[in-house]
């Protein structure tokens, strides 16, 4: 590392001095505190010592110069590697930061047609650090560049601290009080979608403001009874923010049912062989494969909208996220290149990723880069639901609980296993007719698996 050594502050009021001797030249090796030069100041002659041991790379001053405090004197190579600290910072991320980063990254990706080029150093060692950190108290690392001098914000210290705790950059909040003073309500009403990374935010319409019930009321009860106020977890906050943002896309949801009687038989038949490979053959892993083929046939479902530039970004990769219910809230690990993997491999990967998500071992890389999402609530119950998009993706498939129903086939009712499917899509890009075609394609592929090799 080279040190650009400047004339240090020599004490009160000494600002300039005349160089009366230079004791080193280029190539010299110096030890720490070795005299580099002597200057005569208004008060006295002063020797300027080397700040560190090293080799003199350049001498920027000469005898007779009048130099000022802060002026570059010499360049010293101390032979050490670059700062240890910044590397440590990169890898030692807490789980919540990882999640936040995913959110930020995806926003960036939305604007970037080639997400592969995103720097990926953050993956290194993340898993390991997550395990270490998950047990202990996390120290929020909101390090900002050094010496950033912000103008004083017109808000009380309490309000400023509240903004920080909510992850809001108070400098971006408009104060409604006298003289632009920022109140707690201003912070609460600040569009949640603007948090964290306002600059890379796509020009979406302002998200609706969710009115908190009684924001000023910090009491533990109101006139109707007792209230417990608990701070939102980071995952909860992030989920809320991201969904609120996604909500700004005009959503439509289509519902339909797939007859999975036959595919369920196959699932049971091949379950053992997949189990041997280390995975669990589930309807989700089968649907993953079906979706990958469907996305190929319907490229607008594997896309994003860039309203700012009026462009559609068609993704040439097929990465499908699967929503996982964890102790800490909803996480969406992403299975990469689904089109290139068989169902056995997908089953193994899905089991692994779900496990990691639940054990807090998931890494940044594993939570990002999705182009489509599946949310399967069938294990719990329900018939249909309207999933909210996982922006910037433009479609999401909701799966509910299958049930045996009487189906009228060839002049009679037969007991068939029916799977309710709900497809939500971004109407800015996709019209209803295309959406139902897409959904029908998935259903037909489930009902007639030969469709995939035939058309997919």
């Amino acid at each position, binding site marked *: 590392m080279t040190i650009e050594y400047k004339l240090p502050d020599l004490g009160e009021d000494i600002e300039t001095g005349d160089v009366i001797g230079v004791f080193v030249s280029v190539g010299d090796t110096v030890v720490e505190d070795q005299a580099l030069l002597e200057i005569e100041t208004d008060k006295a*002659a002063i020797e300027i010592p080397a700040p560190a041991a090293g080799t003199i790379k350049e001498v920027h001053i000469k005898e007779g110069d009048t130099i000022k405090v802060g002026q570059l004197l010499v360049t010293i190579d101390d032979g050490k590697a670059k700062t240890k600290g910044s590397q440590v910072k990169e890898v030692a991320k807490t789980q919540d930061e990882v999640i936040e980063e995913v959110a930020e990254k995806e926003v960036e990706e939305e604007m970037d047609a080639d997400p592969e080029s995103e720097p990926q150093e953050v993956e290194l060692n993340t898993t390991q650090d997550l395990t270490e950190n998950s047990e202990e108290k996390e120290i929020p690392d909101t390090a900002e560049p050094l010496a950033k001098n912000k103008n004083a914000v017109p808000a009380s210290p309490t309000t400023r601290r509240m903004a920080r705790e909510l992850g809001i950059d108070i400098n971006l909040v408009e104060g409604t009080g006298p003289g632009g003073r920022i109140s707690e309500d201003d912070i609460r009403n600040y569009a949640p979608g603007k948090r964290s990374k306002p600059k890379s935010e796509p020009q979406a319409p302002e998200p609706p403001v969710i009115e908190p019930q009684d924001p000023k009321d910090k009491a533990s009860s109101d006139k109707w009874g007792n209230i417990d106020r608990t701070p939102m977890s980071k995952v909860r906050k992030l989920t809320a923010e991201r969904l609120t943002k996604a909500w700004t896309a005009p959503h439509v949801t289509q519902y339909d049912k797939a007859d999975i009687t036959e595919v369920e038989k196959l699932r049971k038949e091949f379950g053992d062989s997949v189990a041997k490979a280390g995975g669990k053959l589930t309807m989700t892993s089968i649907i993953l494969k079906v979706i990958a083929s469907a996305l190929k046939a319907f490229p607008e479902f594997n896309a994003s909208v860039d309203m700012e530039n009026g462009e559609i970004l068609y993704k040439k990769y097929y990465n499908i996220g699967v929503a996982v219910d964890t102790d800490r809230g909803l996480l969406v690990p992403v299975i990469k290149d689904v089109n290139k993997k068989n169902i056995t491999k997908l089953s193994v990967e899905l089991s692994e990723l779900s496990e990691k998500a639940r054990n807090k071992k998931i890494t940044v890389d594993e939570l990002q880069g999705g182009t489509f999402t599946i949310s399967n609530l069938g294990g719990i119950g329900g018939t249909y639901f309207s999933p909210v998009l996982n922006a910037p993706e433009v479609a999401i498939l909701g799966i509910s609980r299958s049930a045996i129903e009487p189906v009228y086939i060839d002049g009679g009712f037969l007991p068939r296993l029916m799977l309710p499917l709900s497809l939500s899509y971004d109407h800015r890009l996709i019209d209803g007719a295309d959406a139902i075609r897409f959904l029908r394609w998935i259903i037909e592929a489930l009902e007639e698996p030969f469709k995939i090799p035939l058309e997919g």
Partner: protein
Amino acid sequence: MSNAENKTQVAIIGAGPGGYPAAFLAADLGLEVTMIDPEDNPGGVCLYRGCIPSKALLHSAKVISEAEHLKNLGITFNKPKIDLDKLRDWKNGVVEKLVRGLGQLSRQRKVTYLQGRATFLNSTTLEIKRTDGSMEELEFEYAVIATGSRPAHIPSFPNDSPHLLNSTSALDLPEIPKTMLVVGGGYIGLELGTVYAALGTKVSVVEMTSGLMQGADRDLVRVLQKSSEPIYEAIMLNTKVVHMEETKNGIKVKFEAEGSEDTEMIFDRVLVSVGRKPNSENLGLENTGVEVDSKGFIKTDNQRRTSDRNIFAIGDVAGEPMLAHKATHEGRIVAEVLAGRNVAFEPNAIPAVVFTDPEIAWCGITETEAKEKKLNIKVARFPWSASGRATTLDRNDGVTKLIIDPETDRVLGMGIVGPGAGELIAEGVLAIEMGALVSDLELTIHAHPTLSETVMESAEVYYGLSTHMYKPKRDR
């Protein structure tokens, strides 16, 4: 010898006004804390050799000068007799009482206090040399560097001379010299100059720039300078000390001033107060990832985290302004960060107080700074000649002023000169921190008759509607 089994969650190096509040709050928040300091109790420079002893002495100086001042009111005292040993004992007693209190508070909080000096062996281990000479190693999860600063010296001065004082030795009150030269017209020199002048020393001040107290607004300093002139033998501005020499009778000092011949004078004592330097050396920082800037300050982010993730730095060693109350606030912030809270050091105003007579205090932006930065500001000034309370004190020499953003009427800065300015400035700090408007100060009832009314009246001045100062309204 070495004992690597010693572990602590938080190691705090230095028990000054940054370190001990950090230790106390960290302990209160449930962390296990070890504090390392060479003194036998917490307190640091502030209590042992800085704020507290100097204020104890300034208190006696103030009473002496006030007693003298009473002659204007028809009351005269005999010249005070000064028992220097007793005064020194009293001052030391003040220090002792306070540091022992801190020792007790430390024990009550179960903070482990190690008397000694710590150096970093690496990013997780300290080597501690105990005052008794024993060595031990201490492993930490987090370390907080709070090692403060020390008086700067000028290498070419006869620094070994017993006649040459710095702030530390001056506070020891070795004697009341007949003559003293204060080199450097900053706050330390002027405060100690005030003490020695009150005790009877003929004090001269030499300052190489054109005014005392650089950094403070000139209109405030002018008031101080005018009041100070009678107590000092000389105030030499635009004057440099070009040479100093130890002689039998004291130190011979050669001055150089523009437009006049060089002069030489001999002083019994010379007090060098040319600033302070951060104590970032000899800490083994090279064994860590901690980075230091060209002035020796440790680089930190807004949570006071250094470039080494587990190491924090607070107080003088972490940068300007080198003020105890800044260190304390930083210490408390770091304790909260260590406890897992997402907080940062982000004050809107840090007060600065010079305990001269009259006192000067300011906070937020100064008029000088605003002009340098070409900020759009308005200044409202209320002279204490119009204050009833100041008149009852026979001290009409003060000024209270506000620096205002005319677009929003927000208070951006406050400056005060006058007796008690150090106490009055608190209102300005709160106003700035709360984003108060001038009208907020104007509409807040201030007790009568107090000097605090000058804050309210300066707000009234801004609107051209001050009760006690008639100034026809100008067109807005």
